[in-house]
């Protein structure tokens, strides 16, 4: 999987990348890591929840692109995990998206990558429960789920 991250990291305007499982644990990260582990955990968990929410709202997405003033974050859903790419704002995102698709396709055919992903397998829906969400988030979730 590291080779895939290197491939993405070689693109102009890409700072680094990482893959988180559905609990937010980092499965693999570019070296040196582009963000602190705790930050990657949080991003992984919250974006995983966002994918669940979009799915529940009947607006399923395979990819989310978060644009900020000084950076940009692409999240590619892989089902059992999410692939994140941290970029500069002016990055050629079309090139990043295509590279990510190629890398993810490669991982699907790579047994060692599949084994690593399977070891971290967790149902994403488990992220969304009364026990794991604060009161406000739970209220939002119930609204989304009821309208879905």
């Amino acid at each position, binding site marked *: 999987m590291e080779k895939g991250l290197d491939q993405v990291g*070689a693109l*102009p305007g890409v700072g680094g990348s990482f893959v988180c499982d559905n609990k937010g644990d980092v499965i693999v990260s570019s070296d040196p890591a582009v963000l602190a582990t705790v930050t990657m955990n949080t991003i992984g968990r919250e974006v995983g929840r966002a994918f669940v929410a979009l799915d529940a709202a009947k607006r399923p997405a395979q990819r989310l692109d978060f644009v900020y003033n000084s950076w940009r974050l692409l999240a590619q859903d892989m089902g059992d995990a999410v692939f994140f790419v941290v970029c500069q704002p002016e990055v*050629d995102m*079309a*090139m990043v*998206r*295509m*590279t990510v*698709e*190629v890398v993810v*396709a490669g991982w699907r055919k790579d047994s060692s990558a599949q084994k690593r992903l399977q070891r971290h397998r967790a149902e994403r829906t488990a992220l969304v429960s009364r026990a794991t969400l604060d009161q406000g988030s739970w209220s939002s979730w119930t609204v989304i789920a009821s309208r879905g």
Partner: protein
Amino acid sequence: MAEGLTGSLAQLPLVDLLKMLAAGGQSGRLELTSGLDQGDIYLVKGELVHAECDMQVGDAAFARLVTWPNGQFRFEGHVPPPDKTIEKPLDRLLTEAARAASEREAVRRVVPNMDVVPRMARKSPGPSVTVSAADWEVLATVDGVLSAAELARAWGVEELEFAKLLYRMKLNGMVEMAVVQQAAPQQRTPAGPAFFTALNTAVAGALGPLAEIIIDDAVEDLGFTRATFPRDAVASLAERISGEIREPDKRVKFQQTMLQMLRGSQQAA
């Protein structure tokens, strides 16, 4: 022997390839492609006689081609050169190209781009300064307002030549590079017909005979024509077309081909 020889410049660098062809006394055309760029070198009995790349020919074209870090080559034997623009032997051309590349890199470190605004150094480089008449005239126009590109235009010299002059003056302590101006919007380089030929082949491999129509539709959707389509939008075009490819394996293969072209183009630039 070398007729129909094809390969990758990453595996067989151009310098080694040329030495091999020259040693074998080969005649013909060496076609080179790197991403969206292409060029030709012609040999007659192992001697380089002509090179063309973009709008350049001769030594200048050769100097550009040898900087390509990767790409593809194809040697077709017994193709006569359309012109004779190179007189120097291969070894000398390579030495000159290496020297020019090294010089460009040294200049680039001091004058990173032509948007820099040179100004006269605030501190004198020494207790007494000797300035040549030519430098004096240039120095008189270096006002801390005009960019290097504007000054080059005002002096009617090539940007690279003016950058070299600034480099020398900076080393002598006469000028310093002041604030970098906001880069003016650059004219967008067109992707060119060679790109569309390669794209057509890639799309046809994935989508069959409708390739031309699909490409034209995607180009139009992005607000361009083939003639005006800019290089910096090639990734967007490739992504848009890849969205039309339903078979996952074919889509990934197409994306890989396009990414290879794009990477080659960026490295060559």
